[in-house]
Structures are given as structure tokens and as C-alpha cells.
């Protein structure tokens, strides 16, 4: 249509573009909606979903068994009363953080490159928190009483014990889930409207229509919408910091050697961003390839995320150093014994492989070649995912193995059910994610249109420095 003739040549920005050349409102809209509406369900997707769903079934089976027999089917014992369940919980929560960070913090910082990845980063957050939320309930000795942690009026006039970090957890995680959900859904509304209007199949139109709640794109609505969106971002930013801080307090507030460290909250948050971004990459790179989205998720995106990974990785490394330093600086015999057990004890190999994958390997990201090469970046991200799980294992399990009284020193060996619950939760995560990219626009179409608009200079009335921040 007439718009095409008037494409302005891609501006010679020093930075690589955040959207490929030659895109119009239509091309963007169609490309994104086509994935959901027209494109046939690929064999790859089918295979992936089948695999994921198998693990979902494994997950349900494991949960059923744990509920039937008790948490004793796991490897936990005294002194190591917390095992995989808590490790997985912290790991998943951490992964969630990248989504909020990308959509909220980068939004406030006017990072336009976030646009094409924020949608599925947010979805990832949602699914990660879902997986995370299952474990604290499951790991209870009597899971069916989990609601006793919530304050509700009851005949016994019993209340939760609000000094316990676990109650803080409950509130933090639920709040985090709720806010992430709102943020995600609000972001979806205009795109749902788009799908409603693009779709030809009546049933599909009705479904998306209902979800879009009758969005018309009125200028007045856009205004309030935008205000709400920015406010949410402003709220989500401190929230995302608080959530992993609270999680870290589960350990920092306890007094056992290896847990009782004031450095935990900041370096847990850094660790969360670290693991979150690595997970975003782990998901984005294959999706980008499969759905040919190289134009939307460009090399620049990879490059930037690589840099974020590197930065947060260095903060995490600093956290490790500080923790170790404080251990020996404090001169506390128990802390020192704990540290020695980590470095040289029977489970030392876990600690050192964590150092390798969280501190050593990420240093590769200093190299442009690694950051800008999808495959290399993908491999690094994978390693970091594993490394961050190991970090939580070291903190939770290794610390418990060596408590104050040597007579009660113990060890922890995971059982089949420990592993099956972990794999199962990964399966659940994957399944949810695959369903998402199949049923919902994985890239925010209206924000991409804004990019197009700014790229094409369609907003002639604006001054130069406002380019690329159309709606600000």
C-alpha cells in the first residue's frame, strides 16, 4: 500500500538496529499475528510439546507420590532438612526476575531494545513463578495445611507467626505473581484486540475478543493505559528487588553457618538477574531461529543481554568473594569450618563446578564474538542456568550438612523423586511456554509498531531527541 513507498532508509545509528529494515505497520502486525493465527503448528513445536508434556506427567506423578507417602521419599534428613524442593524454589524464583526487570526497569530506563523481548520475558516470569510456587507447598510435611501460613480469621483465633521469613515468602511470592500477571495481561490487551480484528475464524475472534475486553485504541484509553503501565513498572521495580531479598532472608535470618550472611539480599538479587537473563537467552535464541524473528530479536538484543549477563555475573562473583572474606574476617570457628567444608569437603566438587560455571565461563562474554554469536551465547547461557542451580544447592544443602555440632554433621543424597520433581517442573515450564508462543503474540505488536513509526519518522511533528520514544 501507499505506506511502503514512503519508507525512510534505516537511519545510520551507531548502535545496531533493534528492528530489521523495511518493516511497516502491516508487516509487523501480520508477521506477529501470523505465528498465532495462520502459521501451521510445526512438527518441531509438536515434538517439543510432546516431550515437555511427558515431563509434566512425570511431575504430576511425583507430586502424587510425595503427597501419598510423605516428603520422606526425598533424600532430606536431619540435619539436611531442606533439599531439592527449596533449591528448585529459589532457582525458579530467580529465573522469574529477568522478565520483570526487562519489562519494568528497562521500560523506565527508556531502553527501546527491550520491546521485542519483553513479552516473552514476562511470560517466562509468570511460568517460572508458577513452578517456584509449587515447591514450598509440596515440601511441607503436611502440604494440605499450607493455607495455615495465610492470615485468615478462624475459630481458634490462630494467626501466622509474622516473624518467620517463610510467611514473608508467602506474601512476596504471591504479590510478585499477581503483579507480574497484571503487567503481562495489561501489555497483552492491545495485541489481543489486534488478533481479534485480524482473525478470520469466528470462534477465534470471539475468544480474543473476550480477552481484549473491547479495546478500541481510543486516544483517551491509550493515555490512561500508558499511565497505568508506567505506574506498574514503577511498582514492579522495587518489588522485583524485594522478592529475592525476602527469599534470601529465609537463609540470612537463620543463624546457621553459611546462611547467616548480611550480603545475601543484594547478591541474591544479582544472582536472580543473572539466572533470569540466561534463561531469557536460552529461550529467545531457539525461538528466534525457529520462527525467523531475526529482524525483531536482532544481534543487538543478544549483544545487550550478553552485557547484562556479564555485569550481573561480576556482581555475583563479587558476592562470593565478599561472603568468603567475611567468613574469615569474622574469625568465627563455625563459619570457617563451614567454608573449609565447602572448599575441600566431600561435596567440594559441587562448589567448584559452581564457580566454574558462574564465575569463570561468563568471563567469555567480554568477547564480542561470543556475545554476538547466537550459538555461543546460547551455550554460555545454558551453563549459567546450571551454575545458578548449583549455587542454590551449595547454599541450602552444603550449609546444612555442616552445622554447629559435629556429632550431627550429615550428608544429603537426592533420591529418584528429588530428580523427578526437578525435571517435572522444567517440563511444566517448557509446556506452558510452548503453549504461550502458540496461542499468544510472543512479541508486543503495538510496541513494535511504535518502533516502526519512530524509525519511519511518521511522527513528523516531533523533535529529533524524542525519536524512538514515541509514547513518552
Amino acid at each position, binding site marked *: 500500500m501507499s*505506506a511502503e513507498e514512503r519508507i525512510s532508509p534505516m537511519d545510520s545509528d551507531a548502535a545496531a538496529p533493534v528492528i530489521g529494515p523495511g518493516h511497516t*505497520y502491516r508487516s509487523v502486525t501480520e508477521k506477529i499475528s501470523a505465528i498465532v493465527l495462520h502459521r501451521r503448528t510445526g512438527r518441531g513445536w509438536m515434538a517439543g510439546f510432546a516431550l515437555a508434556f511427558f515431563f509434566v506427567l512425570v511431575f504430576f506423578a511425583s507430586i502424587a507420590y510425595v503427597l501419598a507417602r510423605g516428603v520422606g521419599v526425598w533424600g532430606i534428613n536431619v540435619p539436611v532438612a531442606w533439599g531439592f524442593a527449596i533449591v528448585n524454589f529459589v532457582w525458579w524464583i530467580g529465573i522469574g526476575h529477568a522478565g520483570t526487570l526487562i519489562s519494568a526497569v528497562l521500560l523506565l530506563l527508556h531502553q527501546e531494545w527491550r520491546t521485542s523481548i519483553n513479552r516473552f520475558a514476562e511470560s517466562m516470569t509468570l511460568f517460572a513463578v508458577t513452578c517456584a510456587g509449587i515447591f514450598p507447598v509440596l515440601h511441607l510435611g503436611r502440604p494440605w495445611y499450607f493455607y495455615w501460613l495465610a*492470615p485468615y480469621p478462624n475459630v481458634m483465633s490462630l494467626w501466622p507467626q509474622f516473624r518467620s521469613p517463610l510467611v514473608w515468602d508467602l*506474601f512476596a511470592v504471591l504479590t510478585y505473581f499477581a503483579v507480574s500477571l*497484571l503487567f503481562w495481561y495489561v501489555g497483552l490487551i492491545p495485541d489481543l484486540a489486534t488478533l481479534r480484528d485480524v482473525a478470520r475464524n*469466528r470462534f477465534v475472534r470471539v475468544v480474543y475478543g473476550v480477552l481484549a475486553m473491547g479495546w478500541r485504541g481510543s486516544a483517551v484509553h491509550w493515555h490512561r493505559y500508558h499511565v497505568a503501565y508506567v505506574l506498574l513498572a514503577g511498582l514492579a521495580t522495587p518489588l522485583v528487588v524485594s522478592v529475592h531479598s525476602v527469599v534470601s532472608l529465609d537463609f540470612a535470618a537463620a543463624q546457621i553457618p553459611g546462611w547467616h550472611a548480611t550480603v545475601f539480599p543484594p547478591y541474591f538479587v544479582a544472582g536472580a538477574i543473572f539466572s533470569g537473563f540466561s534463561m531469557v537467552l536460552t529461550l529467545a535464541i531457539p525461538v528466534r531461529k525457529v520462527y525467523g524473528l531475526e529482524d525483531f530479536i536482532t544481534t543487538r538484543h543478544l549483544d545487550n543481554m550478553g552485557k547484562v549477563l556479564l555485569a550481573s555475573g561480576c556482581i555475583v562473583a563479587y558476592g562470593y568473594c565478599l561472603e568468603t572474606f567475611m567468613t574469615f574476617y569474622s574469625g568465627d570457628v563455625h563459619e570457617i569450618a563451614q567454608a573449609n567444608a565447602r572448599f575441600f569437603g566431600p561435596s567440594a566438587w559441587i562448589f567448584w563446578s559452581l564457580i566454574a560455571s558462574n564465575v569463570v565461563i561468563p568471563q567469555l562474554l567480554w568477547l564480542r564474538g561470543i556475545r554476538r554469536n547466537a550459538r555461543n551465547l546460547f551455550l554460555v547461557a545454558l551453563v549459567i542456568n546450571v551454575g545458578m542451580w548449583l549455587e542454590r544447592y551449595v547454599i541450602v544443602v552444603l550449609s546444612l550438612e555442616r552445622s554447629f555440632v559435629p556429632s550431627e554433621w550429615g550428608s544429603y543424597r537426592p533420591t529418584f523423586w528429588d530428580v523427578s520433581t526437578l525435571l517435572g517442573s522444567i517440563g511444566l515450564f517448557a509446556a506452558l511456554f510452548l503453549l504461550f508462543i502458540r496461542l499468544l503474540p510472543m512479541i508486543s505488536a503495538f510496541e513494535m509498531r511504535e518502533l516502526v513509526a519512530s524509525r519511519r519518522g511518521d*511522527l513528523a511533528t516531533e523533535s529529533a531527541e524524542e525519536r524512538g520514544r514515541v509514547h513518552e
Partner: protein
Amino acid sequence: MRSASRIYGLLAEFDRPAAVLDAAQRARAQGYTRMDAYTPLPVEGLHEAVHPGRTRLPLLVLLGGAFGCAGGYFLQWYANVVAYPWNIGGRPHHSWPAFIPITFELTVLCAGLTAVLGMLALNGLPRPHHPLFNVPRFELASGTHFFLCIESSDPRFDLEETRRFLEELGAMSVTEVPELIEPTEGGAP
């Protein structure tokens, strides 16, 4: 049929944000007051042009947050000091530092809920039906095209004159928006 049906307004279609913005500003200059623009992406300044004024949303969010904050702290204070005071590890009943995390979380939760629900409420959403959906072309409003609608309730509204005015603004097309649903072309949903 059509002649019989009341008119909701006139809908002008544009292909660029700048154009619709320009049109809206000129329409306001003409003295039109009851109009709205519909765009596939937020356009800076458009809402001032079609409907000047500020939104009350931030105030609502502030109130919501304040409620969450006060309520959260009260909840904990009441539970641990009034309703169920107990010696827990020799800690004081009113262990205020321990109450901070939950207070904060509830603040954020309530503020966030207010922001979204407030936005939807003020926008009058969800609203499954609207006269504009009667216009087939309006589908493009969520994808590629930009619309300005001057409503018939506007005092200066006159079918012919307004149509001409809109065409002068360089609209790609100008369509009447009927109030009634036409059975053949029902806009979703």
C-alpha cells in the same frame, strides 16, 4: 434501513499517526469538542487534542498503596500483639523490623491492583460492544490505520459539513458510523 438508523458519528481514516494528530488538532481548532481518535499505537499528544484534561489514576494508585501499607502493618500488629500474643523465642510481641517485608509487599500489591482495575474502570472496559465496531474498516484501527471520529452528539456536528471538513483534512476515507448493528456486518464481538 441505514437512513432510518441514527448516526453515532463520522469516522475519518488516516495512514500515519502524524496525520491523525494533525487532523485532531485542526478539528479542535474548528471548535469540535466531542470526538475521539483510534490508533493502533499510542500517539503522543493525541489525547490532549481530542480530550484535554488529566487522569485521576495516579491519585487512586496512591490511595491503594496507602491502604495496603497501613492494612498490612495493622494486620501483623493486631495478630502478634493483640489477638495472639505469645513468647516466640524471647522476641518482643511488636517486632516491627520483622513486619516491614509484608507491609511493603501488601503496599505494592494493592497499588498494582488499583492501577490496573482503575485503568479499566476509567476506560469503561470491559465493553464488548461499541458502535464503532459496526464499521468494517475499523478493524484496521488495531493494526495499521489511524482513525478520527467526530461524534454526532457534538453541538457543531452536521453530517454534510463535518464530512467535508474531514475530507479536507486529507482523510483516506470518511464513513458514517451507525448506532444500530447491521446484521450482515457485525463487528466483533
